């Protein structure tokens, strides 16, 4: 009896996961990127996840490529095709392959144990030996072995080699020798797989037309692009995974669009600070002086910045902070994703502080919400937190192309210029002239009448120092009103209704979106209907509370241990606490639809029993 043949009778087209297991630091990123891009170019929707260690060289690393003909946005959680290039993790990788799947490995050093499973097909190809015979130095051989597995995967699945060649040509441009060397390595893989595996294959890649109008981009680059389009001119930062590539991205786009070709002068300034205490201080200084400025960081950075964040809140200095969240506490898992700073950011700093937050779900929203974040910061004269995470920030996502309206004008909020100050009799920094809790700012150097003193110590509506309780409270209460008034201005929630009326719902946030939507589809197939609301801004819009009110049971799906979003919903609305059921996925991996599907289902079954 051939177990494999039975299982493989079902051919899967454009609907499986290729997972590449490799050693960190061997240059596999470009080979993996090439593989994913080639699939995307064939019109097949893809989800890519780089699961990498906190290490420069030597530790195991994995790259998952999900081909998803139905355009899902999350990981699938299973692996149909394992490209096992790291002997250290062979045992684990072998175990992970779904029944009926494939495992490709380098049998330059044969491993009979990899052929132990009868329900999968293990294929050995001597990639290292073949590459060593064709290429000279050690580094080249390692890099070319990566390209060779791209060839082997293509040979096995039917990935279009012409598309691969086109991408390799784009990658190396005029360097013909590199194009030829890489194509040679790819051919080595193609030839080798053709020689060792002649049977039909149950995993197939076929051309589709579902990626037109889409881009493959990471959230950090998208957010950096948002900073550029928002008109930010100043950014300060301290290197920290996973936010570093946001500033790398800002530098890249600024070098492209903000440098005067004749003089070489730059319409931007990026400063790598001595630590996060300094980077946020610099951003505050630049904002205070009238420029749009930001600082990208991750949780540990927010901890260090907290004192200054309270200063900017109380002194009413606009500021945009990008928190690319990673798993904590402390150093935690620096290269794993989580949504574990939701409460830290919302209430950052000592004393009574509340902040405006935006929560993008994918790179397209990263671009759009980055622009919005600067408008919010200027309009409300306060720090704004842009809460993204490692999964959104560092992985390439397939999203619709970004759009830009050329008539856009930034909302710089209430700023009195020279002429207005000339006319005014007396200016007071914290005077609520319009009754909307938002005072007027002035920019240093404009006019002597606009001078005021920004301080983190007690101050009255005139901006003067005070220890008078009444005067102090007056300012503090206005700050509350100001913050509350942002609830209907921040990005509103997105609601997806189930096919049938239901009293069950899911509330989620950020990068869980794709996994929630996929879980909803699967639940619906089982007859379980749930509505869905995605929170996109803080303070919470009234719509969120009424959505919860309209349901009997609300599963709050988020990626942290302590149900932070649920806690905020309980703290900031009048909803019935017992209605909110936490569904927490905090192992550090990108959101998993199966976890949500099973979690909701189990709860429903329990409720029925």
């Amino acid at each position, binding site marked *: 009896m051939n177990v494999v043949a039975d299982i493989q009778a079902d051919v899967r087209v454009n609907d499986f996961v290729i997972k590449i297991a490799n050693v960190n630091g061997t240059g596999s990123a470009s080979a993996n990127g090439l593989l994913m891009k080639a699939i995307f170019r064939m019109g097949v929707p893809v989800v890519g996840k780089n699961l990498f260690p906190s290490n420069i060289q030597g530790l195991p690393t994995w790259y998952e490529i999900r081909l998803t003909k139905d355009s899902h946005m999350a990981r699938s959680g299973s692996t149909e095709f394992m490209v096992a290039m790291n002997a250290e993790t062979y045992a684990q990788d072998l175990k992970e392959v779904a029944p009926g799947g494939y495992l490709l490995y380098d049998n330059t050093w044969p491993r009979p144990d990899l052929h132990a499973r009868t329900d999968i097909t293990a294929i050995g190809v001597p990639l290292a030996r073949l590459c060593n015979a064709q290429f000279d130095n050690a580094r080249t051989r390692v890099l070319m072995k990566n390209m060779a597995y791209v060839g082997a995967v293509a040979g096995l699945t039917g990935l279009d080699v012409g598309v691969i060649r086109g991408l390799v040509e784009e990658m190396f441009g005029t360097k013909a020798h590199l194009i030829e060397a890489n194509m040679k390595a790819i051919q080595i893989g193609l030839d080798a797989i053709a020689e060792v595996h002649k049977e039909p294959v149950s995993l197939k890649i076929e051309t589709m037309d579902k990626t037109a109008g889409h*881009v*493959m*981009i990471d959230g950090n680059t998208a957010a950096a*692009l948002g900073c*550029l*389009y928002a*008109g930010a*001119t*100043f950014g*300060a930062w301290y290197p920290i995974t996973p936010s570093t590539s946001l500033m790398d991205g800002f530098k890249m*786009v600024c070098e492209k*669009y903000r440098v*005067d070709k004749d003089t*070489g*002068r*730059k*319409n*931007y*300034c990026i*400063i790598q*600070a*001595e630590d996060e*205490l*300094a*980077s946020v*201080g*610099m951003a505050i*200084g*630049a*904002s*205070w*002086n*009238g*420029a749009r*400025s930001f600082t990208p960081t991750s949780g540990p950075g927010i901890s260090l910045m907290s*004192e*200054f964040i309270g*200063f900017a809140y109380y*002194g009413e200095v606009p500021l945009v902070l990008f928190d690319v969240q990673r798993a904590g506490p402390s150093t935690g898992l620096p290269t794993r994703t989580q949504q574990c700073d939701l409460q830290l950011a919302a209430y950052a700093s000592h004393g009574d502080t509340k902040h405006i937050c935006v929560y993008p779900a994918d790179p397209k929203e990263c671009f759009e919400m980055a622009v919005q974040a600067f408008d919010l910061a200027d309009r409300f004269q306060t720090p704004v937190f842009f809460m993204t995470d490692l999964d959104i920030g560092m992985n390439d996502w397939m999203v619709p192309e*970004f*759009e830009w*309206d*050329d008539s856009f004008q*930034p909302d710089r909020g209430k700023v009195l210029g020279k002429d207005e100050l000339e006319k005014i009799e007396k200016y007071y920094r914290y005077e609520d002239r319009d009754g909307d809790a938002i005072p007027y700012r002035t*920019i*240093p*150097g*404009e*006019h*002597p009448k*606009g*001078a*005021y*003193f*920004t301080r983190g*110590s007690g101050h009255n509506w005139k901006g*003067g*120092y*005070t*220890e008078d309780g009444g005067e102090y409270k007056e300012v503090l209460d206005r700050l509350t009103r100001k913050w509350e008034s942002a609830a209907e201005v921040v990005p509103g929630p997105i609601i997806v209704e189930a096919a049938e009326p239901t009293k069950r719902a899911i509330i989620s946030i950020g990068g869980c979106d794709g996994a929630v939507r996929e879980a909803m589809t699967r639940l619906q197939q089982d007859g379980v209907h749930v509505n869905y609301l995605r929170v996109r801004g803080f303070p919470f819009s009234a719509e969120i509370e009424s959505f919860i009110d309209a349901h009997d049971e609300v599963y709050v799906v988020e990626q942290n241990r302590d149900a932070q979003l649920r806690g905020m919903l309980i703290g900031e609305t009048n909803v019935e606490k017992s209605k909110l059921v936490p569904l927490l996925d905090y192992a550090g991996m990108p959101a998993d639809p199966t976890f949500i599907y099973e979690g909701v289902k189990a709860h429903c079954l329990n409720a029925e029993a």
Partner: protein
Amino acid sequence: MTSMAKPKISKHLPTNELGLTIRNYEGSMSTLCAGCGHDSVTAALVQAFWELSLAPESAAKVSGIGCSSKTTAYFMGQSHGINTVHGRMPSVATGANAVNGDLHYIGISGDGDSLSIGFGQFAHAIRRNLNMLYIIENNGVYGLTKGQFSASADIGSTTKRGVPNEQTPIDPCVQALTLGAGFVARGFSGDKSQLVPLIKAGLMHRGFALIDVVSPCVTFNDHKGSTKSYAHTYKYYHPLVHTDFVADADEITGEYEADGGMSVTLHDGGILNLRKTESDYDPRDKAQAIDTLMQPRENGEIRTGLLYVDENMADMHEANALPDQPLNKVDYKELCPGSDALGGFLKGYC
């Protein structure tokens, strides 16, 4: 209590080139102790700004936390000021300066603010050669928390109760020299005639200008055992280099040179005329400056004046190739590349 307004009586006072009297450069009433050295530094700043005829709104005052940092409210009420968090003034100054280099940045700090909690930021602002005047009002003691030693307290100097300090002091001037500052000076709050020209020179120097001002704390560190008391400072005060600042380049400077002095032409206008009290001291010799400060002579002299100057270093703006037009004034149209560019950029991601 709230802040107190200072009555502005300007009648019969001389005016500067802008037609402003010295009152136009004053701020709110000081709330420091009577006799505090810091108030003398405040007065010197007012004097220097008025004498330079700088528009009040052309200054931006930045400070941290502490008695010294409070003083930014006590001068130049017509200038913007920002009283930041403890030890972090240099970072705020850096960001502010990056987006508008046209203003005169005056940082006021203390020995606790700069040499303990803010030692890192102090050092890195120097490394970036931030174009600002950075004054440390140095009294060797924490005043607002009632008399603890600061990092600049000398070994053997005592608290009011007679407990001696046993830790090595940090000398901000030596630190600044080793970190690459192009303008390092020491002054004394009790000698306005020396301090005012130093402030003017520091304001006009392009790059980081440090003036460490010995500024006695009358309440907690002006006793017999203190090495930062008025009495001690007056006794051991030793001007090493006299500094005159001349705003107009046409004024004759030859006299100084003939007298063994030297002239330094500043990039943003003005000339410094330096006169040394010791003929073998060279304020362009960094190693000698460090050596001089590191080797206290037996008589315990406090050497003051412009100890080192290099007016030719690239400042942060130059190092970052920033445009002449301040970044905070660049029109949005020039900053946003528009929809066509976006489409072009995204082609690389298809």
